């Protein structure tokens, strides 16, 4: 069964959604992400939806869940790359993506996270550790 890859980028995690999420896949993503945030002490999550052409309330709920769960673990969530047609549809649908920041692309998203997040804790932790393994792929 397919798994959505989670990339570690310094103190942040990047999730690129490239396929249509169905229930099982979405739930697995939530679980994987939460576990990874916890394991790596990540401070932020970027959800890249630049290739997603349909965001319905199910998908909206998943994103909202991820944002809430991450917040509990002290990480901020940014959704990047939303397509115009998706934005227009979401406004009409009335979907409140509360607790979710948005940015035009990954780069801006990372800037946004850096401005919002306290990286001291993360950086101290890095000093303590011997190795800084920044390329952990899941």
């Amino acid at each position, binding site marked *: 069964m397919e798994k959505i890859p989670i990339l570690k980028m310094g103190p942040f995690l990047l999730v690129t959604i490239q396929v249509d999420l169905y229930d099982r896949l979405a739930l697995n993503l939530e679980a994987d992400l939460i576990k990874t945030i916890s394991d790596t002490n990540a401070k932020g999550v970027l959800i890249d939806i630049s290739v997603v052409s349909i965001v319905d309330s199910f998908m909206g709920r998943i994103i909202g869940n991820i944002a809430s769960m991450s917040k509990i673990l002290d990480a901020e969530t940014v*959704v*990047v790359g*939303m*397509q*115009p047609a998706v*934005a*227009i549809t*979401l*406004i*009409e649908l009335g979907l409140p*993506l509360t607790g979710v*920041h*948005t*940015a*035009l*692309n990954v780069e*801006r*998203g990372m800037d*946004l996270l850096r401005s919002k997040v306290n990286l001291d804790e993360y950086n101290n932790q890095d000093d303590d550790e011997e190795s800084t393994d920044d390329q952990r792929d899941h």
Partner: protein
Amino acid sequence: MESNIIEILKKSKSLILKNWVDNQFSSQALNDDLISSEEIKEQSEEILSALLRNLNEQNINNIDAPEFDEVIEALSDVSITRAKLGFSPKETGIFVNGLKNAILEVLETELSSNPAALLAATKNIYNLFDNFSIITFETFIRGREEVIIRQTDEISEISTPVIRVWEGILALPIIGTLDSARTQVVMENLLEAIVETGSSIAILDISGVPAVDSLVAQHLMKTVAATRLMGAECVISGIRPEIAQTIVHLGIDLSNIITKASLAHALKFSFQTLKLEVRKQQTLVGVK
């Protein structure tokens, strides 16, 4: 008695045609460039022939008779063509009436000895031509509407420029009336432009918009919301005092929207937001 009339008309066909065409030329004086004399003769001949071909004692008082379809089609063609050429409705009306008058002139002469028959015939011709007039009027309007639709499309295409005023800042000056359909087009253009240029701020300047109704105001707010959802910001500038008044009276809440008096103010705000500074250059003192 009716058959006499039809015989008379058929017999006098060339006279009727001549009178009709002459009539058109005399009131045509101003529009020689729109349509040539040959075309006028041709069109008139075609319609008169169609009419005489299909007119008989049964259908002279029945406009709905299927035989008249041919006439109606010919009249409609002429009407639409002339509408598109820019003829006025009056000129097209005169065209139809001209035939009626030409026919009546002939009947007057031929039936001068029989006033009762003349009266009956006149009534029938009048009825018939009233209906023809109405039909040509309708098709004329339709012809104009097609022109309007085509022009509307053309206008929509050119009317919403997207200007990159600075790196990361877009300006969309809107000129002219904003209706619901146009606002949606503006919304789509704005969002597409933001993605294409990677801009963080889009300034929507509506100083060229005379009025805004509640539907348009709602669309504007959705535009701002959609922009934010994508991770950018949308500022609305140039709201005229009348529009501000209308918005408040309509009970629309704009507290969530960033509005600036002019595009210049919006630009200043954008620079501040992007932490950019505009400074006057230092003039070098004491340089000879």
